[in-house]
């Protein structure tokens, strides 16, 4: 079973994402900010990361840049999931090594389509 790390400071969003992704066959781990997510990745690299942008302590963009520098940090497919919905943010994220990008609000169809797009399902 593939593992997806859900990184979002909102417990509601984490819960919604967990429900959707468990339905798609993923084992879910949660982190409430980039720092905690990074600590998780030091131990185990998940196959997928669903990543919010704006979070306290370390934001999603900074996390992504740090992740991609780690040994094995190129492996996880990173799908941003954020209210930062403008072209400039999307382009920045893709440039930093994101694989896909979900603009909130989202639903199951969108998550499924994006995860399929990057070959996770």
């Amino acid at each position, binding site marked *: 079973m593939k593992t997806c790390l859900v990184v979002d400071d909102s417990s509601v969003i984490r819960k919604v994402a967990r429900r959707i992704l468990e339905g798609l066959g993923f084992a879910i781990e949660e982190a409430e900010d980039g720092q905690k997510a990074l600590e998780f990745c030091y131990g185990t690299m998940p196959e997928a990361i669903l990543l919010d942008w704006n979070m306290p302590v370390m934001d999603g963009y900074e996390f992504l840049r740090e992740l991609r520098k780690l040994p094995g940090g190129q492996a996880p497919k990173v799908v941003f999931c954020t209210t930062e*919905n*403008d*072209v400039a943010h*999307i*382009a920045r994220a*893709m440039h930093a090594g994101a694989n*896909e*990008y*979900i*603009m909130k*609000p*989202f*639903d*199951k*169809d*969108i998550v499924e*389509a*994006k995860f399929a*797009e990057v070959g996770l399902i």
Partner: protein
Amino acid sequence: MTPLDYDFLRGFLKTRSGLVLSNDKQYLIESRLMPIVRKHGMTGISELVQKLKAPGAESLAAKVTEAMTTNESFFFRDKTPFDHFKEVMLPAMLKARAAKRHVRIWCAAASTGQEPYSLAMILKEMGPQLAGWRFEIIGTDLSGEVLERAKAGIYSQFEVQRGLPIQMLLKYFIQNGDQWTISPEIRSMVHYRTLNLLNDFSALGQFDIVYCRNVLIYFDQPTKIDVLNRTAKLTAPDGYLLLGAAETVVGLTDSFKPIADRRGLYAPTVKAPAGAAAAPAKVFAVAGGRPL
């Protein structure tokens, strides 16, 4: 929109059209009904719901039902029809039309434009390889209203997130708030015409590739047969027909035959002269991935 508004609309649509909405389709209601809300100068979905509940709202009720029951269309919907385009039809056409460098494509149920624009984006992605080629994409639909949307090429944030890779969104769309407009270079590759498939469509001319997806399912048997046979007449002998996932020619007509291992893809049945093996050769070539 309050949860109560949503519940009302779910019940209303189920009763009127049989449309069943799951409990997370608020966005669909908003993207379909906000144009009606704006058109009537209402403040939001809640006011629309109040009007629907009031007596004498039949005309409004009809509009709401129509807006919600128009078939959804996604960019690169179902994926395989577009893989067939890239892997089978395009390579074959690049070879077969190398002399005249002109390929005609018909999207027979273009709806709001996602299918023809998806094909146009695939062509654009091929870049210099297609320099000097002319690809004509004609999109037709029964509804003039959906074709107006197709021509405008403006899509909601939800519409551009299902099936469309983010890199293509960045490359081929222009953002305007939470709406995304297809770029002029892609839009100019597609031409639209209102057309009812039940009427004579021979005036459209001959096509090399025909996409006719998720239309036949709404027709009865004799109509399916008639539409398929008339489509065969305007499909080039070495051309292709693509049907929806739930559709087939099998048991309906001999004018098309399925292509092996390519779900939904059909070739016209060529009445070859005695001894010639044009039709089987094509199937063999496609199965081998190397068009002759």
